C-alpha cells in the first residue's frame, strides 16, 4: 500500500460526495414532480409517454398496486429480452453473424439484465450482436436501474407521509428515473468516455496487421453508450468478456476513476435525496457514515491483501513490492484495482477491472463478503437504499429489545409486521446463496464447471451464487457458467435475490405509509447520532458474519491458511 494509492482512493471518494449532494437535491425535486432545469426539454416527452401508455401521472398507487405494476413491467422486460436473444440470428446489426443463444443462456441473460445483476455466462464480443447489445442489454441497463430507484422512492415516501394510502405511481417514478436522471448522465459521461478512448462505432471488428506481420482482429462496437449506463445504473454487464479490465471499456486511470465515480454517484445521491424527502438530512448523513466505514474497510482489506502478493509469485523471484498483479492491468495498478473491486461489490454493480478469481484469498474474500452484506454500501441504484433501510429497521428493533421500548424509525413505529417482513427479506440472501451452493458442491454437473481445485473451487461456487442472489454480476471467472445447471440455477438465484426481496420490502412500505408520523420525544432513540451509526454497522456485520462465516471459513479462509503453508492444488 502506498500513500499515493490512498490519495487516489480519497480523491475519487471526495469527487463522488461533491457531486452527490447537488444531484441528491435535484433527484428529490424530480421525484416530487417539481420543475427542474431539464423540464423544458423533457416534460413534453414525459407527457407524451404517459398519454401513449394510458398513465395518469396524478393518480397514485398503493404499495400493492405499485408492486404489481413493477412486476408486470419487469416480466414484460424478461419476455422481450428473451425473445430478442433467441431470435438474434434474424435481427439486424449483426455484422459478425452470431446465431441465437441457447434457451438456458437466453433465460439466464434475460433475468440477469432485468434484475440488475448483469451476470454474464457469455463473452460479449463472441456471442452478442450489436443489436442485442443496444436494443436488448443497454435498454435493461436503464430500466432495471430505474426500477430500483422507483422502489426506493416509494419506500422513502412511506416514511415521509403520515396516514397515507398511496406511495406514488410506479410508471411515473420509473419514467422520471430514466428521463431526468439516467439518460442525461449517460449522454454526458458517454461522450467523456469516448474522448478518453472508449470506442463508439457500428462496426464490430477492425482487421490489423501487427508490427510482426501477424493479423489481429480487434473487436469494437457501440461500447461507450453501454459503458456509461452500465456504470451509472450499477448494472455492470460488460460489452466485452473481461468487462472493465478491457482497454476499450476502461482505457486509462482517468477513465477508471470516472467509472468508479459513475458507479457510486447515483446511489450516494439517492441517500441525500432520501434525507431531503423525509425532511431530516441528518438521517442521511448517519446512513452515509455507516456506509463509508464498511466500504473503506473493504477497500483497505483488499488493497492490503493484494499488495502482500502470494508465495507462488515470491517463489518465482518476483519483486515483492509489486504485489499480486496476476489478473490486473498495469495502467491501474494495485490501488485502483482494489478500490474498483470493493466498490463494485459494495454496490451491486459487478463490473470488474481486474479478475477477482486471481486475487489473493483475503483480497477475494472482501468483495465476496461485501456482496453477502446485501450490497448496501451504498448499493445498487435504489436497491442499495431500500436494503439499507431494511437493515436500519432491524437495527432499531435490536435497540428497542435492549431497552424494552417499541422501536421507532423516522417517526414511524416499527412493529411486528415490519420486523417480520424485514427478517423475511434478509433471509432470502443466505437461503439462496447457501442453499444453491450446498447442492452445487456435491453435484457432478455443477462441479464440472469449476476452473480451480481445492478451497478456491468452493470459493468459485459461493461467489457465483452470492453474485447472482445479490444481483451483483461479478465472478470468480474460473467458473465456466455457460451450462444448463449453472445458467438455470444462477437465473433462479437472481430472481429470488431481486423480487423475493422486493415483495416483503414493499409490504413494509405499505404498512409504514398508513401509520401516523410521530414527532420525536425525549424517549425516542435518535437515529442520526454516532451511537446509531455504530449500531447499524454492528447489525450489518454481525448479521452477515453469522450467516456466511462458516461457508467463508471453508473457502477463502481455508485457502489463506493453505497458501501460507505453501500448498497448491
Amino acid at each position: 500500500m502506498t500513500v499515493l494509492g490512498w490519495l487516489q482512493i480519497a480523491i475519487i471518494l471526495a469527487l463522488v460526495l461533491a457531486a452527490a449532494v447537488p444531484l441528491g437535491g435535484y433527484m428529490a425535486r424530480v421525484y416530487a414532480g417539481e420543475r427542474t432545469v431539464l423540464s423544458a426539454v423533457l416534460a413534453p416527452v414525459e407527457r407524451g409517454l404517459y398519454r401513449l401508455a394510458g398513465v395518469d401521472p396524478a393518480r397514485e398507487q398503493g404499495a400493492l398496486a405499485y408492486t404489481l405494476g413493477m412486476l408486470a413491467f419487469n416480466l414484460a422486460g424478461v419476455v422481450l429480452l428473451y425473445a430478442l436473444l433467441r431470435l438474434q440470428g434474424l435481427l439486424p446489426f449483426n455484422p459478425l453473424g452470431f446465431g441465437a443463444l441457447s434457451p438456458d443462456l437466453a433465460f439466464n441473460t434475460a433475468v440477469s439484465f432485468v434484475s440488475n445483476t448483469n451476470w454474464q455466462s457469455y463473452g460479449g464480443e463472441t456471442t452478442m450482436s450489436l443489436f442485442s447489445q443496444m436494443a436488448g442489454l443497454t435498454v435493461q441497463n436503464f430500466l432495471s436501474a430505474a426500477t430500483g430507484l422507483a422502489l426506493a422512492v416509494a419506500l422513502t415516501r412511506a416514511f415521509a407521509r403520515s396516514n397515507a394510502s398511496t406511495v406514488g405511481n410506479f410508471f411515473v417514478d420509473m419514467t422520471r428515473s430514466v428521463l431526468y436522471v439516467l439518460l442525461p448522465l449517460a449522454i454526458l459521461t458517454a461522450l467523456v468516455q469516448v474522448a478518453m478512448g472508449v470506442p463508439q462505432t457500428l462496426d464490430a471488428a477492425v482487421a490489423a496487421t501487427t508490427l510482426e506481420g501477424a493479423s489481429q482482429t480487434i473487436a469494437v462496437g457501440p461500447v461507450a453508450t453501454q459503458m456509461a449506463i452500465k456504470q451509472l445504473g450499477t448494472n455492470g454487464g460488460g460489452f466485452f468478456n473481461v468487462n472493465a479490465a478491457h482497454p476499450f471499456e476502461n482505457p486509462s486511470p482517468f477513465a477508471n476513476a470516472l467509472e468508479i465515480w459513475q458507479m457510486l454517484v447515483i446511489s450516494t445521491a439517492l441517500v441525500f435525496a432520501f434525507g431531503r424527502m423525509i425532511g431530516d438530512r441528518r438521517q442521511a448523513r448517519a446512513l452515509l457514515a455507516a456506509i463509508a466505514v464498511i466500504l473503506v474497510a473493504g477497500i483497505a482489506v483488499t488493497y492490503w491483501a493484494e499488495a502482500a502478493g502470494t508465495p507462488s509469485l515470491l517463489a518465482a523471484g518476483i519483486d515483492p513490492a509489486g504485489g499480486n498483479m496476476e489478473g490486473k492491468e498495469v495502467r491501474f495498478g494495485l490501488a485502483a484495482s482494489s478500490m474498483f473491486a470493493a466498490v463494485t461489490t459494495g454496490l451491486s454493480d459487478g463490473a470488474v477491472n481486474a479478475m477477482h478469481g486471481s486475487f489473493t484469498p483475503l483480497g477475494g474474500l472482501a468483495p465476496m463478503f461485501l456482496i453477502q452484506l446485501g450490497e448496501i454500501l451504498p448499493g445498487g441504484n435504489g436497491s442499495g437504499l431500500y436494503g439499507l433501510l431494511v437493515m436500519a429497521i432491524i437495527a432499531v428493533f435490536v435497540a428497542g429489545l435492549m431497552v424494552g421500548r417499541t422501536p421507532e424509525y423516522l417517526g414511524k413505529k416499527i412493529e411486528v409486521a415490519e420486523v417480520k417482513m424485514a427478517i423475511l427479506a434478509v433471509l432470502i440472501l443466505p437461503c439462496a446463496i447457501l442453499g444453491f451452493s450446498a447442492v452445487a458442491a456435491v453435484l457432478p454437473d455443477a462441479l464440472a464447471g469449476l476452473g480451480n481445485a481445492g478451497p478456491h473451487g468452493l470459493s468459485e461456487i459461493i461467489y457465483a451464487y452470492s453474485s447472482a442472489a445479490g444481483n451483483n454480476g461479478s465472478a470468480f471467472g474460473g467458473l465456466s457458467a455457460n451450462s444448463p445447471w449453472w445458467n438455470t440455477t444462477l437465473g433462479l438465484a437472481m430472481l429470488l435475490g431481486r423480487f423475493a426481496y422486493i415483495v416483503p420490502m414493499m409490504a413494509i412500505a405499505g404498512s409504514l405509509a398508513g401509520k401516523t408520523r410521530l414527532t420525536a420525544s425525549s424517549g425516542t432513540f435518535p437515529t442520526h447520532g454516532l451511537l446509531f451509526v455504530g449500531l447499524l454497522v454492528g447489525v450489518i456485520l454481525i448479521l452477515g458474519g453469522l450467516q456466511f462465516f462458516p461457508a467463508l471459513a471453508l473457502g477463502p479462509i481455508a485457502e489463506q491458511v493453505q497458501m501460507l503453508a505453501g500448498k497448491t492444488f
Partner: protein
Amino acid sequence: MLTFLRPAATLLVAFTLITGIAYPLAMTELAQALFPTQARGSLVERDGQVIGSSLIGQNFAAERYFHPRPSAAGNGYDAAASSGTNLGPTSAKLADRLKADAAALRAAGVTGPIPADAITTSGSGLDPDISPANALAQAARVAGARGVDEALVRDLIAAHISGPQLRVFGDARVNVLALNLALDAAAPAATAPAPGS
C-alpha cells in the same frame, strides 16, 4: 394485472426505442463527429496500413522488440476474445507457469527481482502496457538484437514512460506498441524483415 399490461408494454417498447435505438445511434453520430479517432478504436497506422490500436496490446516475440506481458486472450492478444487466466492464488498450474516464465526471463539475461507485471497475465489479456521496470529489464536484449547502444534504447524507454495521471491516478507505464514503433524508427534493425513479409 391486466390494468398494468398496457402501461408496462407501451413504456417497454417506447424505452427500447429511446434508450436502445435512438440513444446509441445518435451518440454514435455525435462521437464520430467529435472524437473520430477514439470512436473508431484509437487505431494506429503505418504506411497507410492499420497495424493495431494504441489501446490494445499485441504479440511481440522477436528479440528485437519489447515483449508485452503474457496473455490469456485466445492464443495470446486475441483482441476478439479477451480473457484472463482466472487462476487462483493456490493454483498449481499458475505456480508452474510463473516458474517457467521466470526461468525463461533468467535465460534471456534478466537479473535481479523480476518486475511484477513481467510474468503475470493481465485481466484482459490485452494489456497494452508494461511497467518501466519491465521495459528496462528488456533493454539489453533489444539493444543486442538490433546491434545498437543500450543507452539509446534506455533513452527511448525514458521518453515513453507515462507517469500516473496528475501524478496520482494509476501506475507508471510504457505502451509497448508505441515504444516498438519508436524503436523501429530510431534504430531500424539489420534483421528487420522486408516490408510485407
